[in-house]
């Protein structure tokens, strides 16, 4: 519970971050930027977990645990994604999305 700030304001903020992430995911041309956008989406949801836990169920800690869990998974996922991107770069010397569509149809 943060004094002077209601849950609505914080949820509005996370919603904005979430959609910024989605916007970035859809419009960025670079795989690294897309990865960053995915991080934004994840972070928005992590903040949601913590805030909802704090405002609605202050006696328990599941929301906080879950947010830590998500951060750990996100870190692993980022490492995996970066390694894929590096391998991709070795193959086609590019990290542009438009160069990765050779397996279509």
């Amino acid at each position, binding site marked *: 519970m943060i004094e002077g700030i209601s849950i609505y304001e914080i949820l509005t903020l996370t919603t904005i971050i979430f959609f910024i992430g*989605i916007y970035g*995911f*859809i*419009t*960025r041309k670079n795989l690294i930027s*897309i990865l960053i956008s995915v991080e934004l989406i994840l972070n928005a949801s992590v903040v949601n977990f913590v805030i909802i836990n704090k405002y609605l169920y202050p006696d328990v800690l599941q929301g906080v645990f879950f947010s830590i869990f998500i951060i750990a998974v996100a870190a692993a996922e980022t490492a995996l994604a970066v390694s894929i991107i590096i391998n991709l770069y070795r193959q086609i010397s590019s990290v542009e*999305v*438009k160069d*990765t*569509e*050779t*397996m*279509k*149809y």
Partner: protein
Amino acid sequence: MNLSYIILIPLIPLALFLLLGIFNQKIKPSVSGYIGVFGLLASTLLSLYTAYQYFFVSGKVDGVYQTFVDKAVWIRFTDTLQIDMGILIDPISVMMLIVVSIVSLMVNIYSRGYMKGDDGYTKFFAFLGLFSFSMFGLVLATNLFQIYMFWELVGVSSYLLIGYYYTKPSAVSAAKKAFIVTRFADLGFLIGILIIGYYTGTFDFETLNNPEGSAILNWASTSFMGLSVITWALILIFIGGAGKSAMFPLHIWLPDAMEGPTPVSALIHAATMVVAGVFLVARLFPMYYFVEHGFALNIVAYVGAFSALFAAIIALTQTDIKRVLAFSTMSQLGYMMLALGVSGYDGHEGVGYMASMFHLFTHAMFKALLFLGAGSVIHAVHSNYLKDMGGLRKYMPITNITFLIAALAIAGVPPFAGFWSKDEILVAAFEHNKLIYFVGVFVAGLTAFYMFRLYFGIFWGKDTTYEHKPKESPLSMTFPLLFLALLTIVGGFIPFSELITADKIGFEAHLNYPLAAVAVGVGLIGIILAWMFYKKENDLADKFVNAFGVFYKWTYNKFYFDEIYLFVTKKIIFKLISAPIAWFDKKVVDGTMVGIGNKTVLTSNKIKGLQSGKVQDYAFAFIAGVVVLALVFIYLWTN
């Protein structure tokens, strides 16, 4: 009687086939020939031992030759209706063992010389092994289904061997023709088997052939279109036999089958496979005789007699020496069929049955000899046609003598084998059916004439000048000729009537002198006519041809039977039945399916752009979908 070694008789050739077939490329040709010969030699010795054991040691109990069976259940439908595999030993199967093994052995020896230098030498011996195996299996079969299986196997090996020169289009089409015509006939055989299986509940020869047995006679009263069902079944089975034995009107494949190598013609299309039809009728003889007073047997007699006459007439005019022999084979097979057809069952009444088997035996020997002799001639002059031959007696003395012996035998001149068996056939026909007797005598004259036309045409006649001087064939080819000639000389003295009869009891056969004199006289007239026409080059034959111009042309073209079949199949069946069905199949059935396929492809071509491969497009679609769904749910909840 100990049967355990008899199973080896078919199994040795099977082993040969597998050995030579699998290691086709690894075995040297010189070795493979010996493997074939020694394998068949083993089978032959076993067959001879079996025959000795059966006929002279342990086959006879109280004056009746017993039937020995050794079998195992293979497929079981009901308690009685089951398909066995096994061996059945009775007089005719033992006799057939000897015929098949001796001719196979001789042909194997002969092929070592005849096929020398051929590319598929080893393959050839492998196929011969397959054929011998199938034929042994056929004669030893214990039931209708087993005989049918081996029946098809001999058909396959015949197909393989006719089409042996597979680069020659005529050989390929001849092989196909032989296979299709006999398969067509075998359809009748199969239906007959099924009818018998359905009504009598058994396939077993022993049960079916038991004259007192109730298996057949119970059902002989069930009638269908005026005849009993069993009679129909027997007629259908005879159609199968007629196809294999080249009876009119299913004979058209046999002349074309001469495209195969000559040893094959000698083995399959003269001595062994083509007599399978005769053997089949003989095998079921008690059924044929007892069901409805032998109605089906009468059909056998008339078809046989007509085929004998028909083929003999065509043989008069053919100029390809192998085709003359092919029609001669058909004619002699007709003889065997008519002998079965006029035969009775008990004692001396069964002389026709005995004569048929006797003629089968002697014919196998002298016709194999004729074919092998013809092969020797073809080997020397590299042509099948009479016009390329003449005066060969100077170059090929052994072939000349052996061919003459065989020709005398088939013409029915005593004391050669053909005289004795043909005489018995004519006796049987004389006693039961005068019309068939006269046909038989007339055919005997024709036979003598065309056979000596052939003999004089090849070995006497005009003195042809040859580019390469023909020379006598090597020992591997002349030995079988001499051996078979020996059998042709002594074969007639085998007391067949004591050994092989319908009721298995045996009787004393006496030479019927008046009938024998008539037959020999007719034969001699034929020979003398041929001597006048063809011994020296003269224009008598040409004058005759001119006098009978139209008739000559008809017979020369085999009464246009090939053309009739072609017309019926191509013009009528193909055009009126097959073509519309094919159109329906192609346009309507296939069309529907192809249309569905084409439409699917078209649609997918149009929409495949959606799968752009861009991960962001997919993400956008996904998110848009989620948003739309979310809006829908919110709308639904708020109302």
